[in-house]
């Protein structure tokens, strides 16, 4: 009932305006936007390995309750922790606030302990030609569990996935050393990628703060496979939303009001997930090729691909927030309910009443739309700074950037449309 089409055009106009503004702004302005302020000379927190071990113990305990506790996915701590606390909340915090994964990662501590106790050294060298490919495929596997598996919240099913993945990762590190964690373990790669978007970060010995994205500009361009990983992050995120729209049900020839359930669309969703990623990759590469052509630049597409891929991270992160916000507002209450019940604080009432009040519905939609628009504006600014650095003049940088910028404006419209369109789930 909200005038969503007005918001969609307003959002697209904002992103477009940013683009136009860039033409007139002095070269240094956009670079300055991303400067950082060191505000605290602080050493990294101690007890890194201890916290990681604690994280592993908690993981072990929730896997156990997944196998033995209540079958209700909104009362069992495993699905609540994995899908609500970790996937929605902690991933967002990693990308928006700062790198907690260096502490909360459930492998580094146990591995450190293991090597201290046994003097274990990696048995094999991580094959360099594999690069980040194992990570890409494992992340697609994770996305498959999230979007394709018929029952990703079923406690015992999830317990097996999580338990086996944790164990295999540990095995990978024992065999190949920490390289496995950095290049093959999908979650750590994702967390390290998102970490570059955080407002808090380290510069030398200081804790610094800056506009989301400042850390991307201080890093060298990623390796090609890591750049592919970043696109896959956005591709999967976009499909997780598209797969709930009436439009998607229409493509599958299904009635969204009589949805036969996830088990009836396993193959279709798997194909859709892969197709979404392929289409995104092709569209992104095409924009880069086009930009290089019209500007007459001679650099290779791979170099441009690696340079601009990180600029998609703010879009992916913004969409993560926007997409999960409504379900998070409900499921976070189930987390509170679990905590209340466990601590004996009485019962916590889970409400969905805020979905019926116009004021709260509007607030939720504005946060979602605001996040998507902000994400795209930051993406365009980042791409602009990177283009300026790579190409001598503002004029040249803008010409190279035009197709990519149009792509981002279209993606804004797509993202807002996804949020506004009727859903069957």
């Amino acid at each position, binding site marked *: *009932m909200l005038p969503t089409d007005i918001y969609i055009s307003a959002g697209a106009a904002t992103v477009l305006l940013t683009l136009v503004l860039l033409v007139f702004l002095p070269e240094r302005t956009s670079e300055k936007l991303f400067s950082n302020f060191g505000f605290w000379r602080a050493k990294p927190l101690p007890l890194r390995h201890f916290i990681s071990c604690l994280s592993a113990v908690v993981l072990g305990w929730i896997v156990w309750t997944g196998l033995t506790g*209540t*079958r*209700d*996915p*909104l*009362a069992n701590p495993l699905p609540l922790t994995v899908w609500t606390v970790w996937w929605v909340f902690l991933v967002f915090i990693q990308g928006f606030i700062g790198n907690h994964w260096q502490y909360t990662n459930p492998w580094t501590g146990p591995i450190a302990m293991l090597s201290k106790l046994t003097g274990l050294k990696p048995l094999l060298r991580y094959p360099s030609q594999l690069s980040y490919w194992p990570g890409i495929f494992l992340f697609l596997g994770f996305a498959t569990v999230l979007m394709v598996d*018929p*029952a990703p*919240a*079923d406690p015992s099913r999830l317990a097996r996935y999580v338990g086996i993945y944790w164990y295999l990762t540990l095995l990978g590190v024992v065999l190949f050393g920490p390289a496995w964690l950095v290049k093959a373990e999908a979650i750590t790669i994702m967390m390290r990628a998102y970490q570059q978007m955080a407002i808090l970060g380290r510069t030398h010995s200081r804790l610094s703060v800056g506009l989301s994205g400042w850390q991307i500009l201080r890093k060298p361009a990623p390796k090609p496979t890591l750049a592919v990983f970043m696109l896959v992050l956005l591709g999967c995120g976009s499909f997780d939303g598209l797969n709930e729209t*009436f439009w998607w*049900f*229409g493509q599958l020839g299904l*009635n*969204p*009001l*009589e*949805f*036969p*359930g*996830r*088990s*009836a669309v396993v193959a279709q969703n798997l194909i859709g997930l892969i197709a979404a990623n392929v289409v995104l990759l092709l569209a992104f590469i095409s924009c880069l090729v086009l930009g290089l052509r019209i500007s007459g630049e001679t650099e290779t597409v791979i170099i441009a691909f690696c340079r601009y891929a990180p600029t998609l991270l703010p879009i992916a992160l913004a969409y993560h927030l926007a997409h999960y916000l409504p379900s998070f507002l409900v499921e976070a209450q189930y987390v509170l309910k679990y905590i209340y019940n466990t601590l004996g604080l009485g019962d916590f*009432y*889970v*409400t*969905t*009443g*805020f979905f*019926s*009040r*116009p004021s709260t519905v509007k607030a939720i939609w504005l946060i979602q739309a605001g996040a998507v628009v902000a994400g795209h504006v930051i993406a365009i600014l980042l791409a602009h700074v990177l283009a300026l650095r790579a190409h001598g003049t503002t004029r040249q940088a803008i010409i190279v950037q035009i197709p990519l910028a149009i792509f981002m404006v279209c993606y804004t419209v797509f993202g807002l449309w996804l949020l506004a369109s*009727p*859903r*069957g*789930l």
Partner: protein
Amino acid sequence: MITPKNATTRRNVLKTLAGGAAGAATLPLWARYAQAQTSEPIKIGFQVHRTGIGAAYGRWYDRTTMAAVNLINEQGGINGRPVEIVAEDDGTDPKRGAEVVEKFANQHGCDIGFGTLFSHVVIGSSPRAGELKLPYFVVSEGHHVASGMLNRYTLQPGITDVKSQVQAMAPFVAENLGKKVTMIFPDFAFGHDHRDFFTRAIEAQGGEVLAHIAVPPAETSFTKYFPKIPQDTEVLYHVMVGPAVLTFVKELGEFFGPSRPEIFGFIDSLEAVDISSPGLEYLEGTYFWEGNPRHAQEDQSEHDKFYRAAVGVDERGASISDPSDVSTYAHMFGCWETLHVIKAGMEAAGYQSHADRAKLIEAVEAMTEMPLSQAHPQGAKLFNGKTHQVFGHQYISKVTDGKLVKVHTTSIEDTLYPDEVDYTTQSF
């Protein structure tokens, strides 16, 4: 084996039960041990739509179920044993529904399965319940139980079916609102049921349906369908569901303005939606079927009062913890009443273990009248053991000053139709 009809009548079972109680004091030690063994809880597998399209209903089905089980346990449980709910999410997915039923029977050792709402999940799960010989008590209001497409192990004793609901509306509509009806409904099974059942029922009342307007289920704007409504329509019958309901009402108002025909709808369209929400003003003065009046009425029974308090619902059918959280009041009483039927059935059958599952079904099949009571706060019911379907009063409310005011209560007779199956002739 064909079991003769009503081999176990309630009276027989009660007699056996009384004999058993009298003899218990003189039992040898081993038998008393056996008695102690059965003080294990009675496990009821609750097939709940926790995720998927049924999740909003699932939340309230869960609350009602837990309230009923707490009450039953406070009152001493069933046959002296506490009741334990084993909740499994079926994702509102028929295939998973069947898996959940299997888990109830093979993994959790449940005595029965219970609580399924969405028709396609019931239809997907019921055959497995039959194969596993697990009594399966559904709360779905679908006609699939009484139509004969399911099996002896599947029963619907706590909520009436859509066929009886729809046909019972026809006499009131014809007498009070008009005889020339146009129906507007979503173009899939749910809408088709309304089309078929109501068209026949209104014709039996001497009325007619002037036009059937089927709207594709994924439609989000309805303006183009309204010109198809014939000029001489006296009553517009609507059953739109899904996320575009508010748009439907708004566009309906824009199309007709103040000179509208009488409007009659099923509350399913606005279940869990506050009727006084902005955008729904146009519904003022229109009529709704309600399975159970959402707003407390002037003649509210003490049982409805008790039931509301137990579930945590206020006089507007919203949560007492958050008045903007409106319940699925027209349907969820089915969980409460079904659990009380299960209790009565288990007590009548002297249910002790899984071996007594067939006895439980026979005991429920033997039931007939269920008077208005704490166990049946929605109203009196009549159970048909042959079709495994319960029949009961239906309510028609008029939106008056933003409140659903009951204007008509159908008789149970209005809701009856000839049997389409006799499950009691099927073997266990």
